[in-house]
């Protein structure tokens, strides 16, 4: 592995699979998980990418479409056999790529193609699990991870989920970064912390005591056990993303989401 291009995402891809990954800006490999073979996918920094705004671990045009390809190839390969291999999205994405060319050439569609592929995999019966090992930001997380049946995260510095980077969010909402942090304490969905993300019912497990940058073998095997467990859960669960509204925390923090669904269903058919 090229040292200058390593990232948490690529390190975890290697740690969990033990084999050389395929691809450059999107890397993936098939490896055992539990008693089956899973496809592990991550977005990697790519200093030589021909799109200059997409050289970091961000989801740019090529990343979006190549994520879709990595997922869809697995769907296609399994279509005839009847088995549905698990797909693990290793999430370490700073943002979508911000650029003139990106907008021109349809970064929104590139990201949507990844959303489509992951959602289609889940609908086709592939257990999809997202493992957050770094930032899971905004549109990049929508494209890579947010369509999963189950979401787990390392409880480590640097893992976070949010709709917008802190500095940008501060500018847009005309608040200081400190004020944003305070607000996150009070208003759960505003927080960047994984603990708050869990309070929203969106996180299935926070894996504690694992070194995100230099995991030991024991750490890796613990994470692998969690992933295998989530794959088993996902196989037996046909509820799709509705699963996120079923937990105890969601009953409290997502009461409005639940109420909207209940009352809309009551009014759906004219009386």
């Amino acid at each position: 592995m090229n040292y200058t291009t390593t990232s948490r995402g690529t390190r975890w891809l290697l740690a969990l699979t033990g084999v050389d990954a395929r691809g450059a800006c999107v890397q993936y490999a098939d490896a055992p998980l539990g008693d089956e073979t899973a496809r592990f996918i991550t977005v990697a920094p790519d200093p030589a990418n021909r799109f200059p705004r997409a050289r970091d671990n961000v989801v740019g045009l090529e990343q979006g479409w190549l994520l879709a390809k990595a997922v869809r190839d697995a769907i296609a390969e399994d279509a005839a056999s009847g088995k549905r291999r698990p797909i693990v999205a290793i999430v370490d994405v700073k943002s979508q790529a911000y650029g003139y060319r990106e907008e021109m050439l349809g970064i929104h569609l590139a990201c949507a193609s990844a959303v489509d592929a992951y959602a289609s995999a889940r609908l086709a019966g592939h257990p999809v699990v997202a493992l957050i090992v770094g930032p899971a930001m905004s549109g990049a997380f929508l494209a890579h991870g947010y369509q999963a049946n189950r979401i787990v995260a390392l409880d480590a510095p640097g893992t976070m989920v949010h709709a917008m980077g802190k500095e940008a969010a501060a500018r847009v909402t005309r608040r200081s970064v400190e004020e944003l942090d305070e607000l996150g304490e009070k208003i759960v969905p505003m927080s960047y912390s994984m603990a708050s993300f869990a309070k929203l019912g969106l996180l299935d497990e926070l894996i504690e005591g694992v070194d995100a940058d230099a995991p030991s073998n024991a750490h890796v095997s613990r994470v692998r056990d969690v992933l295998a467990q989530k794959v088993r859960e996902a196989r037996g669960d046909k509820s799709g993303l509705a699963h996120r509204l079923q937990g105890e925390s969601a009953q409290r923090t997502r009461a409005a989401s639940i109420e909207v669904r209940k009352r809309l269903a009551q009014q759906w058919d004219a009386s």
Partner: protein
Amino acid sequence: MSSTNQVGPGALLRESFIELSARERAAAVLDAGTLRELLGPFDRIESPWLPLQGIVCQADDGAVIARGTIDGQPAVVAAIESAFQGGSIGEVSGSKIAAALELALADCERGKIVRPVILFETGGVRLQEANLGLAVIAEIQSAIVALRAHVPVVGVIAGMVGCFGGMSLAAALCSMLVMTKQGRLGMNGPEVIEQEAGIEELDSSDRRQVWQLIGGEQRTQTGFADALVDDAVDDVRTAVRAAFAQGMPHSHRSANVDATLARLAQIDPASVTPESMRAVFAASPTNLHGETA
């Protein structure tokens, strides 16, 4: 240039779609007199998060869900109100859209086809509800992918806000997208790009450059949207009906992976312009002007 882009002599007399509120837009898309609003303002399901930040709520949270018919067939319209918080998606407004699509899916799975239409007018996630805005957008996207296996999901981007952020991905997942010349479709708004990448990347105050990049005309010319219509109620109505009459596309835009990767490979990032990309991303926008092409 197709004739749909020209403003005919009678056009100024026609009723503007852009100037309508979300509720009026939903009524305009449905068959006349069939609108029945669900979870309307009197149900008063408001954002639980805005009051905590000193922001006044709106009783429908900026999303209108309406049942009715389109060409006599059962339909549901989700219309986003840009006048409330820029059409931003919060927990309630986003859940209303997701739930409407999920209920349409449940009906379709029982063999009762419901025609879904989404009227996009949104900057994306409502930042005051940040992570929940993002979460409900993922749920909307999931519902669109599941639903379009049964029935085309039709999106309209009329303007003037346009469609940005996570909701631009939702629009890209639709089976069929109708845009006006005034509509804009992009992931990152021009201001965000200028902020993140610098003014030499994009000058967001240059309106002409912005519309050339992400405006309805460019998007239909390059295959990112299907129909370009005038800002007229009649034209939007006709285009939506034509989309359902046409039925399911051969393949969905967001699933054309190999073909799009091949097109991207032909692009030289250093020199590509909105004009030059048309040679690679050529599309013939459907003429849905209500006249024979």
